[in-house]
């Protein structure tokens, strides 16, 4: 039983990693007042770029760089539309998601001729698991051994990076000048502008950070979690990250727990496939799969707590006499 739990938590960590990275990415963007439903597209774009570059150069790290570049470029398009041209944030996000969905397939066809895939990656072209020192030796220590060896040890570096990004984000958002300005710009851009700070510059920087984190998430999908790019491999993770961001009320630590919860539900869904629970019968996998979305809707409806986002979110900033 305990072993099963550790295994499920282990799976939770793997599944949660892209969610955490993407949700934190969304946090930077949305706390700065830019709605980002383009997380999905950025993850997908990065997954493709990372896998493609890793396949060509044989290095996961080079892949990562390209993944991040792709994702940041998409974030800059979003910025160009929403910040520079005061476009609708949602429309811009939909546009980016759509473009990426088409472009990744078109380009992979052109470059690799494999119908929307990239070549399978192996060796250095993937991020491999890191085994902690003495992991094997300590496995037999009761309780802690299993946690150390199977749960904490044995993930790739991006998993650890994702978890590390949570305290880092907390620190950036609440303890630095950049964070103060970023939060202010999401609440009242006029206050920031009149304080002599460029609203656009802060928002662009927030989007760059957002792009970098989405880039990590995408690279994780194609060069760490999987061994190559598959058509539409982001499979709604960007939207689920958005749900987690709302569920965590735009705060780093609660967002982490929302991601873990959603990841855990995913792990449970896989475990429960075909399992018959006495008295209830077989729980359909789909019922567990939809839980993150249902929970988010319930939260938004105010049935479980209340989600109040940054005040100026989604509104283009227009300089004017107030």
């Amino acid at each position, binding site marked *: 039983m305990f072993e099963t739990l550790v295994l499920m938590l282990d799976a939770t960590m793997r599944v949660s990693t892209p969610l955490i990275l993407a949700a934190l990415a969304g946090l930077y963007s949305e706390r700065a007042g830019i709605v980002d439903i383009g997380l999905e597209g950025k993850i997908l774009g990065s997954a493709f770029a990372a896998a493609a570059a890793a396949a060509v150069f044989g290095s996961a790290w080079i892949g990562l760089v390209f993944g991040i570049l792709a994702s940041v470029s998409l974030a800059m398009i979003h910025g160009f539309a929403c910040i520079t041209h005061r476009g609708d944030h949602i429309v811009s996000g939909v546009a980016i998601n759509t473009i990426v969905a088409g472009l990744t397939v078109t380009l992979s066809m052109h470059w690799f001729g494999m119908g929307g895939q990239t070549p399978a990656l192996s060796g250095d072209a993937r991020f491999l698991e890191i085994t902690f020192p003495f992991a094997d030796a300590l496995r037999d220590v009761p309780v802690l051994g299993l946690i150390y060896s199977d749960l904490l040890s044995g993930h790739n570096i991006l998993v650890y990076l994702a978890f590390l990004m949570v305290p880092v984000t907390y620190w950036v958002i609440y303890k630095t000048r950049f964070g103060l300005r970023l*939060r*202010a710009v999401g609440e009242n851009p*006029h206050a*920031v502008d009149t304080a002599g700070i460029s609203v656009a510059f802060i928002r662009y920087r927030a989007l760059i950070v957002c792009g970098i984190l989405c880039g990590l998430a995408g690279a994780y999908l194609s060069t760490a979690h999987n061994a190559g790019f598959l058509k539409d491999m982001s499979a709604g993770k960007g939207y689920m990250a958005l749900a987690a961001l709302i569920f965590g009320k735009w705060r780093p630590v609660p967002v982490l727990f929302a991601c873990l919860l959603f990841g855990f539900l995913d792990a449970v869904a896989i475990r429960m496939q075909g399992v018959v629970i006495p008295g209830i019968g077989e729980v359909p996998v789909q019922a567990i799969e939809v839980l993150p979305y249902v929970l988010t809707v319930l939260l938004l409806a105010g049935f479980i707590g209340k989600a109040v986002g940054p*005040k100026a979110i989604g509104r283009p900033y227009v300089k*004017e*006499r107030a």
Partner: protein
Amino acid sequence: MTNKTMPYAIELRDISKRFGAVQANKDICLQVAAGTIHGIIGENGAGKSTLMSIIYGFYEADSGHIEVDGQRVQIRSSEDAIQAGIGMVHQHFMLVETFTVLENVMLGAEGGALLKQGIDAARIELQRLAEEYSLDIDVDAIVEELPVGLQQRVEILKALYRGARILILDEPTGVLTPQEADHLFRILKALKEQGVTVLLITHKLREIMASTDNVSVMRQGEMVAHRETAHTSKEELAELMVGKKVRLTVNKDEAKPSQVLLSAKHVSQFDSQGVKRLKDVSLELRAGEILGIAGVSGNGQSELLNVLSGITTMDEGEIEFAGETISAKTPKNAAQMRDLKMAHVPEDRHKMGLVTGFEAYEAAVLGYHNSAAYNGKILMNRQAMLDECKTRMAAWDVRPPNPHLKTANFSGGNQQKIVIAREVEQNPDVLLIGQPTRGVDIGAIENIHEQIVKLRDSGKAILLVSVELDEIMALSDRILVMFDGAVVGQLDAKDADERTLGLMMANAFTDPDSEQSNEKGAAV
């Protein structure tokens, strides 16, 4: 003060600014001596805010230049303005409401990449500023929890913290009670004594006379006069502002009020945050009278209009109107109130009274769109709407008389005529009318006032809300004064004078000695 060797704190030379076809500022020259309080007065739309926005770097002037302390400066952004030692207190505060006072003050002047580096220094500096200018405030308080007067203080602190030597205040008393305003002026005096130069933008003559050393008058985008405050008078300034003798009286006969058409009893209303916005308001409105509601903006007048017109539901009390009793349990919405022959000209025609994207003929039926006159069985009768709109445009002299023109493209006065015509032509029993002449040019004001009196004389009841005391006194037959959501005074228009009303608006009339205690929340 006029010492020629000492450079002016700020000097504007031939500043011009055009927005499309509108010349907002034309060849503006202004000299402000250091260490003085300089007033700039003008009507709404005279170009004061544009000018201040240019000084603070929100807009760049098309031509002309600015000198600060005798040095020519380029102000392209707020950052440049701050660098030049200019600070601004905006009409609508530029504060992050969810932040603490400290965070707001630090924003943009954090003192390092990490907040930790600047936070202690900021505390000490704020302490010093607070003592020097008697600007006491709890620096750890969340801004949205502070009363308006204190929020304004945060704005001043923000400017001073950035080392502002020139402080611009744009209509600073619009949201303040007279007591809070008094306190503000004491602060400004203290600032002046410390050598700060203050530019005070307002359209209120009283404030100019009471607090400034010099005053400049703007009219239609131009600077028309400069005066030493000691050597001018309200009357002269008023004349300079509007360009012709102001006629503050309206020709009207004695009112002949008859039966009560509407009576409100103990009406209270809470906002979404649970704050009580209307407190136990009772009033009676009679046929053939104009009841004026005076008060500083934001003291419950808007809420009163909204409740009476059915836009919001009251939480306590009841209203009797047209044989119906309306209460929290038996509410009526705006459409139902219209059916009972209540018309409403809202305070803000852009936000509420019009859909500016609609063509005039469509906007002209807003609220009456379900009326049989404009509808067939299934579809709306466009021709009927157009015909009626044309007729009204002719009758009310709306220019241009084009029912297909987008409402947004009419001038303020003509938009207001469209709204008033719409409401009055429905021949209501009761007309609620808020700020009837806000942003309306002088010619149209007289016209609108005459129409209101005409409606009264035809036996209708009119409830007039205005923040312009002159308008209230000129039009009303009876005046109620609101303060902090409650009716605090009532008087016959014959007995009303500015001083009495002013005291009532400050809720200081019955007991002038307790002024301090009335200063709600102004002291921490």
